[in-house]
């Protein structure tokens, strides 16, 4: 008996990762799961990127050169779905897995087994979704917003697989969110009060609530589609008394908070990186927290600004216009606070800082085009043109994506114990920066000139802008392959990193050794104000 106990005890101490494939399949360790999420999202990012390049290759010149319209529609649809649900969201969950426990001084996530499940659902969900591209009749071709009845009565037979894939993604997101909330609310080290939590933890806490609120709405929408398709209901079928516009209300009631789900954690990341490289405490911590909370609240009452053209009464249009414009206020507060953090700091410009500054600048531009889109009477002219495409790519690519890349460079030394190659990192930044702007800036112009989105071919007056855009897209795409090279090279042969890898880095994670041990904070750390408040 005592021997058994002894053996147990011994096991406990030597408990490192299991060997081989089993480590990854059965792991309940937040760092392993974080790594899985990050690599998964990177793989999805490359696949989604290839689809984007198919689109840009076809649009390089007027006329149909490479693909047929029905295939083109599958490309735009799957590009959107894969990037939103496969690349951006899992990347943020991966970062949360790695960082939240270390930042709040917890040994692991609150629900480690569920953590394993919420990751391992994803490869199946996306396997199912991508397999539809090879089915007879092709994959989803109705846009990532899958408006009924194009996605129901008129959809290809594979739509049922798409519906189940969305259900799986939703289940995964909800489990991930419950886990994050449980960790943050229950497992903070003594002394870390809510208003001392790092911004990344704050933004994720709020994001997780948004996810729990809206993923079931999405599940409801696709379930109604399923019933319309297979069980002859008419939720969205006008001929049977249903309403296609109701589908859009439901979709965007999910969809608008979803947009903030993809940007709030980015706000958190940038709020760590800018203070670190400005060597100055984050300006206006309290107002930053309130700004995030108000953005999250507002995200529930602006959804119909995506549908100004469906034919709403005047009062409805005005309400959604005003509420949408209001979002500019808390968003502005965040930008002003970041700039004030930089102001009279002592700045250096390592790769994470470059990405973070580019985030602030380009996200602000995306914010301005967003404000223009909020103005209902002019939105009629912008709606469903490339102006919208430019707008949301500015907030998602140099917005969400740049923040993820910045986070990878910033915490890379903590994760791996190695430093990335600074020169290569900077090359990666400048290539991405040029690529992103060459791709998406001209799209503002093609949109204003009147080019509708989601078309495989276009009238001749849009030719120049599209050619520039396509060139930019290939630059951007290749620079992300270069990113992969930088990361692999640095994992293999990076210089050893210090525990506090950046001079100005503050937070509990930097008090751990680099690389962070497999099990960290098995005993709660002492929370010192100058550490957590920066």
């Amino acid at each position, binding site marked *: 008996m005592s021997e058994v106990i002894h053996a147990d005890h011994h096991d406990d101490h030597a408990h490192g990762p299991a060997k081989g494939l089993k480590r990854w399949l059965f792991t309940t360790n937040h760092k392993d799961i974080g790594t899985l999420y990050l690599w998964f999202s990177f793989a999805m990012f490359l696949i989604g990127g290839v689809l984007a390049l198919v689109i840009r290759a076809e649009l390089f010149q007027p006329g*149909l050169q490479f693909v047929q319209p029905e295939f083109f*529609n599958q490309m735009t649809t799957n590009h959107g779905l894969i990037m939103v649900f496969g690349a951006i969201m899992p990347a943020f969950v991966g970062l949360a897995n790695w960082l939240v426990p270390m930042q709040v001084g917890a040994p692991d996530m609150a629900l480690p087994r569920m953590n394993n499940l919420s990751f391992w659902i994803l490869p199946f969900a996306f396997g199912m979704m991508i397999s539809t591209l090879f089915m*007879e009749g092709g994959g989803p*071709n109705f846009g990532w917003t899958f*408006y009924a*009845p*194009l996605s129901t*009565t*008129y959809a290809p037979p594979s739509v049922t697989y798409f519906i189940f894939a969305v259900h799986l993604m939703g289940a995964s997101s909800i489990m991930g969110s419950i886990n994050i909330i449980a960790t943050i609310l229950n497992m903070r080290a003594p002394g870390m009060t809510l208003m001392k939590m790092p911004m990344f933890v704050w933004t994720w806490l709020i994001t997780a609530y948004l996810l729990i609120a809206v993923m079931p709405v999405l599940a409801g929408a696709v379930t109604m589609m399923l019933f319309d398709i297979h069980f002859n209901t008419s939720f969205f079928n*006008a*001929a049977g008394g249903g*309403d*296609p*516009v109701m589908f859009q209300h439901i979709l965007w009631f999910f969809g608008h908070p979803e947009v903030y789900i993809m940007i709030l954690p980015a706000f958190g990341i940038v709020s760590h990186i800018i203070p670190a490289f*400005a060597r100055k*405490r984050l300006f*206006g*911590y*309290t*107002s930053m927290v309130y700004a995030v909370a108000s953005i999250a609240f507002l995200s529930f009452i602006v959804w119909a600004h995506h549908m100004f053209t*469906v*034919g709403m009464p*005047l009062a409805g*249009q005005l309400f959604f216009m*005003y509420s949408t*414009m*209001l979002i*500019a*206020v808390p968003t502005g*507060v965040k930008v002003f606070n970041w*700039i004030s*953090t*930089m*102001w009279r*700091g*002592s*700045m*250096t410009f390592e790769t994470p800082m470059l990405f973070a*500054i580019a985030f*602030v600048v380009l996200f*602000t*531009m995306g914010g*301005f085009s967003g404000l*223009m889109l909020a*103005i*209902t*009477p*002019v939105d*009629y*002219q912008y709606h*469903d043109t490339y102006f919208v495409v430019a707008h949301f790519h500015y907030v998602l690519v140099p917005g969400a994506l740049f923040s993820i890349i910045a986070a990878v460079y910033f915490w890379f030394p903590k994760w791996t114990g190695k430093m990335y190659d600074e020169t290569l990192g900077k090359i990666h930044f400048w290539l991405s920066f040029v690529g992103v702007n060459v791709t998406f800036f001209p799209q503002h*112009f093609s949109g*204003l*000139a009147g080019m*509708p989105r989601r*078309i495989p*071919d*276009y*009238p001749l*007056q849009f030719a120049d802008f599209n050619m520039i855009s396509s060139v930019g897209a290939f630059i951007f795409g290749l620079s992300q392959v270069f990113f992969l090279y930088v990361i692999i090279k640095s994992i293999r042969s990076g210089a050893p990193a210090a525990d506090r890898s950046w001079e100005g880095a503050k937070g509990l994670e930097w008090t751990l050794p680099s690389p962070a041990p497999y099990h960290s904070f098995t005993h709660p750390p002492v929370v010192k104000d100058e550490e957590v408040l920066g």
Partner: protein
Amino acid sequence: MKHQLLRIFGGIAALLSAGIATADELNLRVGVTDISRQVYDLHMTIFLICVAIGVVVLGVLFWSVFAHRKSKGVEPATFHESTKLELAWTIVPTLILIVMAIPATQVLVAMYDTGGEDMSIEVRGYQWKWQYKYLDDDYNNTLSFFSVMSTPRDEIYNQSAKAENYLLEVDEYLRIPTNRKVRFLITAEDVIHAWWVPDFGIKRDAVPGMLNELWTIVEEPGIYRGQCTELCGKDHGFMPIVLEVMPEAEFDAWYASRVTSESVRQESIADALTHEELMAQGEAVYGTYCASCHLANGEGVAPVFPAIAGSAVAQGPRDDHLSLVINGVAGTAMQAFGKQLDSAQLASVVHYQRNAFGNDVGDMSQPQDVINLSNGQ
């Protein structure tokens, strides 16, 4: 230094806004209606306010990037909050937003000034064409026609040079008069489309089961072009909208003659046709109405759009084939063409399908057969 930078920023901003305001292919169209001009002005107002704020805010950011560097030996300051500043940058943006909201509301209210129209036209979106119907009790709403893209396949597939209005040309324009208030009632037959004429500053979704309302008054005669702006399936990029705005007298003359020629055609609609006539008309109808799904060579797109070549229906009993085309197949993209085509067009397209693409049934389908079939039901 500080002055110089400010000057540079000011210069860039001025250049940008001037450049963007003048170069018309870089900016929104001013358009030709009162509404479109109001929309353009509003767009410029909001845009310039954004540019101004952007120049100030990002100017501060870049100044900081240049000046507050460790390499310049700057010691970091220690301030990290200021209630006054936070209040200022909450209140000032709110005020700016109110300034923006006032003209925005005015323009929107002006757009919603419906009623008092001189004429109404029903606009109906189909996969992938528009149907226009002049709502006119004097003529029992008889004047209605489809407007289908007429850009040839060769141009799309780069086998011949692209014409000036590539993808923006249709077989029949929607014609309206100048200076009259025209109301458009917008709806759709199958999926959601959107009807947009940029030069008029109007766009509205065409939703099945719903009637949306738009109106316009155009002063300048001319030809105005737009495109469908809601993803509606395979040929979403190929359903342009073309309007010809005619001086009032000219329009009235055209309208009268168009209504007359339509009724003359209706009178002789039941006349029997020869095989050659049927094939010729059938091929034209097929190219305009059927080829987008069943393809010009009749091969279809498996499994969504079945082939006509070798089809059991096209080689089976004639009346079954006719009634499938007349009534469509509920719940699929195969529309009820009885509502879209007249009996001569229906008879000829069915005849054509039965005797082309290697199908060789050899029977005849006459307009009278279609009429009998429809009456029998």
